[in-house]
Each structure stands twice: as C-alpha cells, then as structure tokens.
C-alpha cells in the first residue's frame, strides 16, 4: 500500500530560524511528489512538483529536495506569513491518478 508520512506534526519557529520539514514515502512506482501549502479555511495551494531523486525546486524562502525515499521542504529565514500547514502528496504509476496525501506539518512562525 502506498504511504506518505510527514514529520514533525507541528513545528514552531522564531522569525528567521531556518528549518526543514520531512516527507517519507513508500510507493510502488513514483510518478511525482507534490508539496502544497494550506491556510486555515482554504484549499491546498500548489507549491512544487518533484519527479526524480536529486531534483530541487525553489520559490522565495522555500526549497524542495527529493531522494528515493523522502523529500524535504527547507524554509530559510521564515516570516510569520509562512505559517500554514504544509502537505506532501505522491502520485503513482501514471500522470492522471489521484494524489495520496500525508497528514501535513503545521508550521507556526513567531515574530
């Protein structure tokens, strides 16, 4: 069975304190790994897609990396507006199949 595990469940950082979120996955055939940001009362907002080990993507203070077993979302010098739940999801086999999500990491950045 395809599984996605995110850690930690919750993370509290001071503004400017860099850290990383982890997404471990066990799937039969990875097509893509996705990172989403979800603010309270809103739907997930697409951040990145990673397709193969060694790939990296960056957007502002966020950088996503991936190995054959896990992905990291690195947050550099976070600001309070980065506070949100970050969801990791995998897509298997083909390019038109549903996403399997982890439970997410709730990030709080304190000024």
């Amino acid at each position, binding site marked *: 069975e395809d599984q*996605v595990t995110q850690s930690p469940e919750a993370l509290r950082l001071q503004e400017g304190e860099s850290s990383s979120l982890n997404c471990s996955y066990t799937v039969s055939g990875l*097509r*893509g790994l*996705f990172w*989403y940001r979800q603010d309270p*009362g*809103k*739907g*997930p*907002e*697409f951040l990145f*897609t990673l397709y193969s080990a060694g790939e990296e993507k960056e957007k502002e203070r966020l950088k996503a990396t991936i190995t054959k077993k896990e992905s990291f979302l690195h947050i550099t010098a976070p600001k309070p507006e980065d506070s949100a739940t970050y*969801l990791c*999801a995998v*897509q298997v086999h083909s*390019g*038109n*199949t*549903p*996403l399997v*999500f*982890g*439970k*997410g990491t709730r990030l709080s950045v304190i000024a």
Partner: protein
Amino acid sequence: EAGVAQSPRYKIIEKRQSVAFWCNPISGHATLYWYQQILGQGPKLLIQFQNNGVVDDSQLPKDRFSAERLKGVDSTLKIQPAKLEDSAVYLCASSFGGVLNEQFFGPGTRLTVL
C-alpha cells in the same frame, strides 16, 4: 485565470438529511477530483472524473454518496443520508491531465453533521 469554484462554503445539517455540493473546475481541465479532508488529516480521494466519465470511485461510500459530472464541466457531490462521521471539508480539484498533472484545489465546503 479563474480558479476552481465551489459552493456552498459552509453547510450544517442534521444526521439523515441530504446535502449537495457543487464544483466548477478551471476552464480546459479535463480531470476533476473530489477529496474528503477530515480535521487534522490530509485530503482523501472520493472520486475522479475524466471528462464526464468516472475513472476511480473505489473509495466512495456508494450506499450514501453519489457524484456526477454532466457535459464534462461542472460536478455535484451528494450525500444521502448524512452520518455524523461525514463531517469534513469536501475539496474539489482539477487538472489538465496528461503530463501536466498538477492539481489545483478549490476553497472547499465545510460540512458539519449534527
């Protein structure tokens, strides 16, 4: 570009009542998904449409949930009768399909069953 639209945003019903949710995907997106997100969990797929055909409904509780996508555009998800455990956020997502497989989500409908 307009995003995925959903309505209503909130709904409160008594158990055993019926409820329906509506979704309008991004223009040109052939694939439409309905996900259920229980508080503290990641979204879980209920049903996937490709144009107006069902691709995957293996996790849809078919004794009480139904969904349709007429003319391959808008979609409705219905629950009849609702149970307490159906309290969740119902998210609609769409994607272009093929190699462009990023899914874009609507704001969701928060359902509370009393």
